[in-house]
C-alpha cells in the first residue's frame, strides 16, 4: 500500500530504500522465514483459545461465570496473537496514515473492551463479544498465514537458486595441493577444481579439462553443453562427467547465480502501472472507512434511541466493529505484488529474466517487434558452407593455408576457418611475419611463401580468398545460419497480430535474403547502432509500442530506446546486459512467451484489483446496516464474525486467483511450444541459403 516517505520504517538494501506500512511488513521483508514461524506460533495460540471461547459462547450460554471465562480465554489471543496488529497500528498512527493493522486493532479492541465493560459493570443479561474479538484475530492471522505460505511456495524457484551453491569449493594451490574453502572466500584468479556431479561454485574460465555441464538452472535448457579449455562456466550449473579446473573470474556476490536471484527478487518487488489505482484507493480508503464506521454507528445509536430500543450502545458498537473489520484493504495491497511474484518466477524458471517489472505493462501493449539480425535471428558466428579450391589445388591445401594464418586472428571468420581445420584434423603450418589489416584480412609467410587471406562480404556472400605470391588459390564461403527457433517465433508473433521488422548493419542483399527466408516484409539494412535507435523512435512516433530484440551488449542503444528491450543473453554476463528482459537461452520462442506472459500478468493484476475493490464496495454498506431492513438487528450478533470471515476470504481469494496465473500462462503458451522450449534441439541452426 502507499506509504509516505516520512515513515520511519524503512530499510536500505542494494542502494535502494524500501518503505513499509507496518513493522510486520518490514519483518517479513527482512526475514521471511522468521516471520512465517512467528505467524504460525501466534496462529496456534489463537485457535487453541478461540475454539473454547466459541464452545462456551454457543454451547453453554447459561454456564456460571460465562462472561468471565470468555474474558480469561480471550486475553492470550488479544495480548499475544493480536500484538502483531497493534504494533502495526501504532506505527501507522505515528506516520499519520492508516493501514489494515489500524482497522483490525480498532475493531478487536473495541469489541474486547466493550465486552469487558459489560462483564464487570452491567447487571442485566447483556451479551458479550469476546468471541468476535478473538475470532477476528484468528481468522485474519489464518489469512496472513495462507498468504505467507503461498508466497514462499511461489518464491521457491528463486530461493532454490540461492540455496543451490555448494557449501565448499576445492581450491588448488600452485603445487597442486587441494584445500576446501567456502564459496564466499573464493577470490578472482583462484583455481577451483570441480569434480563430476559437483555444482560449480563461481563463474570462471576452464583452464584444464573437458566435461558436459548441465546449465538448466540458469538457462532452462535441459540438454547439457560441452565445456573445455577457454570456455566460461557459471555458478550453480552442474558438472556432469569430467573433471574441470576453473580460474575464478566472478566469485561470490558477483556470480551469475547471485545476479539472477537479485533480479528475480527485484522484479517481484516492482510495480506495474495498474497498481496506481490500488495506491489511490488505499490512500483515501482508510479515512473513508473510519468516517463510514463512525457515522453509521452514530446513526444506529440515535435511531435506536428514538425507537426506544433498550441496547442502542451494543448495536452501535457492533456496527463500528463490523465496518472496520470488513473494510480491511489487504486484498487490494496483495493484488499486484503476489501476481508479479508468480509471473517473475514462472519466467525465470524458463530462462526469461525480467529486470524491470514495469515492462510487463509495455509488453501487454506491444504492437511491433523489431529484431536485430546477426546474433539474434541468425547465429552470432559464421560457419563454413563451401571450400572452392582453384584447379590443381586440393581441399586440404586451401584450408591449411587459410587456417595457418587465421589461427592468429580473433575475427569470427578466422575462428570458423580454424574450427573447420580442427574438425577435418588438418595439421597447420608455422607462419611468421603475420600482419592483420582490419576489414581486409590477414597476411604472412608460410614455408617461405607469401600468403594473403582476404575477407569480403559481397552480394550477400561472406567469404575469403586465399592467394599465394599474388596468385589466387581458392575461396572459402561462409554463412550466418538462421536460428531454428526464428521461423516459429516470427510466425507466432504474426499470428498474434504483431508487426515484425528486422534491422541490420548488413548489405541490402544479405538483409533481404534472410528476411525473405523468414517471411519478414519490413526490413532495414545498412543500419549503424544509432540508426537502429532512430528507426525504433520513428515507429514510436507513429504510435507503435516497440519491443526490440537484440544483442545485450552491442545493441544497447536500441534496447534502451524501445518500449521493451529484450536482449539475447549469453547466459554469462547478466550485469552487463542492457534491456528490460534477458533471455538466458537463445531460443527466440521466448520472445513470444515474454509477450504473452506480459499480457496475462497485467490482465491478472487488473482482475485482482477489480475483485478487491468490488468486494469492499459491496460489503461496506452491508456492514453499515444496509441489510437490517431485510434481516432485522439480529444480523449484528453474527456480523462481526462474518466480517472477519469475509476479510480472510478476500485475501485468500486474491492469492488463489493469482496462483491460477501459473496454469493460465502454461495453457496460453502451450500452442507456441512452451513445453518444447525447455528441451531445445541440439542442432540450433539451419543454413541461411
Amino acid at each position: 500500500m502507499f506509504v509516505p516517505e516520512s515513515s520511519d520504517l524503512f530499510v536500505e538494501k542494494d542502494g535502494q530504500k524500501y518503505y513499509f506500512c507496518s513493522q510486520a511488513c518490514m519483518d517479513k521483508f527482512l526475514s521471511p522465514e522468521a516471520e512465517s514461524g512467528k505467524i504460525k506460533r501466534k496462529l496456534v495460540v489463537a485457535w487453541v483459545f478461540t475454539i473454547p471461547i466459541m464452545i462456551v459462547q454457543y454451547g453453554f450460554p447459561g454456564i456460571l461465570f460465562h462472561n468471565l471465562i470468555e474474558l480469561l480465554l480471550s486475553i492470550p489471543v488479544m495480548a499475544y496473537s493480536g500484538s502483531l496488529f497493534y504494533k502495526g497500528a501504532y506505527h501507522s498512527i505515528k506516520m499519520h496514515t492508516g493501514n489494515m493493522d489500524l482497522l483490525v486493532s480498532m475493531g478487536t479492541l473495541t469489541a474486547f473492551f466493550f465486552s469487558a465493560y459489560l462483564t464487570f459493570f452491567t447487571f442485566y443479561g447483556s451479551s458479550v463479544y469476546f468471541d468476535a474479538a478473538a475470532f477476528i484475530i484468528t481468522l485474519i492471522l489464518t489469512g496472513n498465514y495462507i498468504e505467507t505460505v503461498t508466497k514462499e511456495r511461489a518464491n521457491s524457484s528463486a530461493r532454490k537458486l540461492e540455496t543451490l551453491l555448494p557449501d565448499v569449493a576445492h581450491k588448488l594451490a600452485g603445487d597442486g595441493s587441494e584445500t576446501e574453502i567456502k564459496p564466499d572466500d573464493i577470490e578472482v584468479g583462484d583455481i577451483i577444481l570441480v569434480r563430476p556431479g559437483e555444482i560449480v561454485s563461481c563463474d570462471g574460465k576452464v583452464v584444464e579439462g573437458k566435461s558436459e555441464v548441465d546449465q538448466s538452472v540458469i538457462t532452462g535448457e535441459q540438454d547439457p553443453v560441452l565445456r573445455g579449455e577457454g570456455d566460461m562456466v557459471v555458478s550453480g550449473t552442474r558438472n556432469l562427467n569430467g573433471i574441470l579446473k576453473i580460474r575464478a573470474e566472478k566469485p561470490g556476490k558477483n556470480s551469475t547465480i547471485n545476479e539472477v536471484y537479485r533480479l528475480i527478487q527485484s522484479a517481484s518487488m516492482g510495480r506495474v502501472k495498474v497498481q496506481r489505482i490500488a495506491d489511490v484507493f488505499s490512500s483515501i480508503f482508510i479515512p473513508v472507512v473510519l468516517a463510514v464506521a463512525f457515522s453509521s454507528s452514530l446513526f444506529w445509536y440515535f435511531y435506536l434511541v428514538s425507537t426506544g430500543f433498550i441496547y442502542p450502545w451494543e448495536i452501535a458498537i457492533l456496527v463500528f466493529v463490523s465496518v472496520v473489520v470488513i473494510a480491511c484493504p489487504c486484498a487490494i495491497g496483495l493484488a499486484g505484488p503476489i501476481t508479479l511474484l508468480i509471473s517473475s518466477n514462472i519466467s525465470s524458471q524458463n530462462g526469461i529474466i525480467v529486470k524491470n517489472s514495469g515492462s510487463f505493462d509495455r509488453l501487454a501493449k506491444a504492437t511491433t517487434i523489431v529484431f536485430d539480425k546477426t546474433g539474434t535471428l541468425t547465429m552470432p558466428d559464421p560457419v563454413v558452407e563451401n571450400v572452392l579450391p582453384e584447379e590443381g589445388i586440393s581441399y586440404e591445401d586451401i584450408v591449411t593455408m587459410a587456417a595457418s594464418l587465421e589461427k592468429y586472428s580473433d575475427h569470427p571468420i578466422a575462428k570458423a576457418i580454424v574450427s573447420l581445420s580442427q574438425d577435418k584434423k588438418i595439421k597447420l603450418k608455422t607462419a611468421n611475419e603475420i600482419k592483420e589489416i582490419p576489414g581486409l584480412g590477414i597476411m604472412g609467410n608460410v614455408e617461405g611463401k607469401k600468403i594473403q587471406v582476404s575477407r569480403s562480404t559481397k552480394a550477400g556472400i561472406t567469404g575469403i580468398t586465399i592467394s599465394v605470391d599474388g596468385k589466387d588459390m581458392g575461396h572459402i564461403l561462409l554463412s550466418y545460419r538462421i536460428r531454428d527457433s526464428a521461423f516459429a517465433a516470427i510466425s507466432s508473433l504474426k499470428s498474434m497480430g504483431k508487426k515484425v521488422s528486422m534491422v541490420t548493419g548488413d548489405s541490402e542483399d544479405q538483409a533481404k535474403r534472410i528476411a525473405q527466408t523468414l517471411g519478414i516484409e519490413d526490413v532495414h539494412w545498412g543500419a549503424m547502432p544509432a540508426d537502429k535507435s532512430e528507426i525504433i523512435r520513428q515507429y514510436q512516433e507513429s504510435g507503435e509500442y516497440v519491443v526490440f530484440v537484440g544483442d545485450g551488449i552491442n545493441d544497447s542503444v536500441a534496447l534502451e530506446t524501445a518500449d521493451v528491450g529484450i536482449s539475447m543473453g549469453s547466459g554469462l554476463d547478466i550485469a552487463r546486459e542492457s534491456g528490460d528482459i534477458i533471455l538466458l537461452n537463445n531460443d527466440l520462442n521466448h520472445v513470444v512467451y515474454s509477450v504473452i506472459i506480459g499480457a496475462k500478468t497485467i490482465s491478472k493484476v487488473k482482475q485482482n484489483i477489480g475483485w478487491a475493490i468490488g468486494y469492499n464496495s459491496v460489503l461496506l454498506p452491508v456492514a453499515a446496516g444496509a441489510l437490517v431492513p431485510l434481516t432485522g438487528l439480529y444480523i449484528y450478533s453474527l456480523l462481526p464474525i462474518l466480517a472477519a470471515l469475509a476479510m480472510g476470504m478476500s485475501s485468500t481469494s486474491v492469492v488463489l486467483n493469482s496462483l491460477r496465473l501459473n496454469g493460465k500462462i502454461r495453457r496460453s503458451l502451450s500452442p507456441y511450444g512452451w513445453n518444447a522450449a525447455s528441451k531445445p534441439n541440439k542442432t540450433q541452426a539451419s543454413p541461411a541459403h
Partner: protein
Amino acid sequence: MKEDVVCGMKVKEDTPYKSEFQGKTFYFCNAGCKTEFDKNPIKYSRR
C-alpha cells in the same frame, strides 16, 4: 505529488527537474531522470 515516469518515484511539483512534452509537464527526482526522459520522451511519456 507527481510520479517521475523514468524511475517511478513520487516527486513534488516544485522539483527543479521538469520537461515539457506535447503540452504536458513531466516531473523528475533528479537530473539523471530528466536527461533520460529528454533522450526519449515518447517512450517515457506513454508510461
